[in-house]
C-alpha cells in the first residue's frame, strides 16, 4: 500500500503539477554571492524589474499551483524599493512571500527589528537567512555572525516563519549544529537547513571538498516545480546552483517573461521530456549510465552542468525519441530502486 501510494504520488506529481506541486516564483535581483552588487545588476534592475514584476505576478496568480513568491539573489535588500514593491504586490495577489537574505542589515537588534517590521507590514511571511563560511567572509564587513541571531530574533518576534540555510563542504566550519549553538534558545523556533555545494560556477574549484559521488537513483524534485525569473526576464525551470553559471545557465532557460505569458512558459516546461527525465529519474543517471560511468557527480546540479557542457552534443544527437524510450525503461524499474533506497 505504501509503495503503491509512493508510485502514484510520483507519477501524478510528474504529469499533473497543478494538482500537487508547489511552484515558486523566484525573483532574482543580483547574481553574486555576498553583498557587493555589480553595477550591471543595478542597471538591469532599474530597467527591467519594475516593468515585469506586476506582469509576472498577475500571470502567476492565474496558475493555481503557484503559491509562494521568493525574493532572492544575490542580496535583494540592496534594492529596497524593488523589494518592497515585490513583497507588497505578491501579498496583494495572495501569495505566500519569502525573502532570502544574508542579514547584513541586522548589525543591531534594533536595526533588525526596524527592517523586519517594515517588510512584515508590507506582507512578508517568511525570512530565509543564508549563512555559511562563504557568506561570513562578506558579512564581517557589516558586522559579525551576530547579525544572523539579530535577524532571526526580529523575525521570530514579528511572527515570521524563519529559516537559516547553510551551504557547506566537507571542510567548512559552519554547519547546522554550529548554527544551532549560535542561535541558542532561539534555535527551537527557527528551521535550520544545510546542503552541500555543487562544484560549479564560483565553487568549481571546490570539487574535492564537495559531497560524495551520487548514487544511481533519485530525481530532482525542484526541476519544473520551482520556476525562477531573472533580472532580464529570463524564466528558468528550476532554482538550482547552475542558473547563473556562465557555461551551463542556458540549459535551464525556457522563456522570457518580457516577451510571453508565464503560462506559455509553464506549458513548455510541462511538455519537455528532458525535464521529465531530470525530475523523475535524475540527470546524474543520464550522465553515468549513458555517457561516462566513471564520471564523478557530486551534486544533482553538477549533473545538469555536465549535461549542458561536456555531454550536450551527444545528448542532442541522441534526441527526443531516445530520451522518451529510456524514460519508459527507467520508470518501469523505478519501484526496485525505491525499495532499495
Amino acid at each position: 500500500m505504501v509503495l503503491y501510494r509512493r508510485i502514484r504520488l510520483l507519477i501524478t506529481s510528474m504529469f499533473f503539477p497543478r494538482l500537487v506541486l508547489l511552484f515558486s516564483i523566484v525573483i532574482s535581483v543580483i547574481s553574486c554571492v555576498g553583498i557587493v552588487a555589480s553595477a550591471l545588476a543595478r542597471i538591469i534592475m532599474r530597467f527591467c524589474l519594475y516593468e515585469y514584476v506586476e506582469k509576472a505576478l498577475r500571470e502567476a496568480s492565474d496558475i493555481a499551483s503557484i503559491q509562494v513568491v521568493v525574493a532572492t539573489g544575490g542580496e535583494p535588500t540592496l534594492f529596497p524599493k524593488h523589494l518592497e514593491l515585490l513583497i507588497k504586490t505578491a501579498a496583494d495577489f495572495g501569495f505566500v512571500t519569502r525573502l532570502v537574505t544574508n542579514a547584513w542589515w541586522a548589525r543591531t537588534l534594533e536595526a533588525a527589528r526596524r527592517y523586519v517590521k517594515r517588510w512584515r507590514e508590507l506582507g512578508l511571511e517568511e525570512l530565509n537567512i543564508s549563512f555559511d563560511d562563504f557568506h561570513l567572509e562578506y558579512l564581517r564587513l557589516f558586522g559579525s555572525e551576530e547579525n544572523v541571531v539579530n535577524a532571526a530574533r526580529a523575525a521570530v518576534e514579528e511572527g515570521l516563519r524563519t529559516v537559516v540555510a547553510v551551504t557547506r563542504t566537507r571542510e567548512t566550519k559552519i554547519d547546522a549544529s554550529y548554527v544551532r549553538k549560535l542561535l541558542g534558545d532561539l534555535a527551537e523556533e527557527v528551521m535550520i537547513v544545510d546542503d552541500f555545494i555543487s562544484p560549479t560556477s564560483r565553487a568549481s574549484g571546490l570539487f574535492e571538498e564537495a559531497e560524495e559521488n551520487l548514487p544511481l537513483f533519485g530525481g530532482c524534485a525542484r526541476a519544473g516545480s520551482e520556476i525562477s525569473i531573472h533580472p532580464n526576464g529570463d524564466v528558468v525551470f528550476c532554482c538550482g546552483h547552475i542558473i547563473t553559471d556562465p557555461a551551463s545557465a542556458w540549459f535551464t532557460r525556457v522563456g522570457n517573461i518580457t516577451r510571453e505569458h508565464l503560462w506559455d512558459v509553464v506549458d513548455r516546461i510541462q511538455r519537455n521530456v528532458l525535464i521529465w527525465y531530470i525530475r523523475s529519474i535524475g540527470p546524474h543517471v543520464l550522465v553515468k549510465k549513458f555517457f561516462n560511468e566513471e564520471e564523478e557527480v557530486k551534486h544533482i546540479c553538477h549533473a545538469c552542468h555536465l549535461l549542458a557542457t561536456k555531454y550536450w552534443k551527444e545528448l542532442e544527437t541522441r534526441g527526443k525519441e531516445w530520451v522518451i524510450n529510456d524514460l519508459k525503461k527507467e520508470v518501469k524499474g523505478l519501484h526496485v530502486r525505491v525499495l532499495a533506497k
Partner: protein
Amino acid sequence: MNLDNFLLTPEEATNLANDLIQQQLYKSGVSISEPAYVLGAIAAVVAVVAAVVAIGLAVVIGVYVWCYTDVYGC
C-alpha cells in the same frame, strides 16, 4: 542552444504520460482498484469475526444468566 528539441506535442505528452502510468501501475500486477479490494476483504473478515464473537458471547451470557442466577434458574 536550448531545450526545445526535447519538446513533446500535447498529444505526445498525453500518450507518454498514459504509457508511464500504465507501466507503473500494471507491471507488477498492481491495479488502481487493488487497494479497494484489499481493504474490502479485510473489512469483511473483521466484520464476520466480530459478528461470531458477539453472537458467541451473547449465548454464553444468556446460558449463564438462565442457568446460574436466582432470577430464572434451570
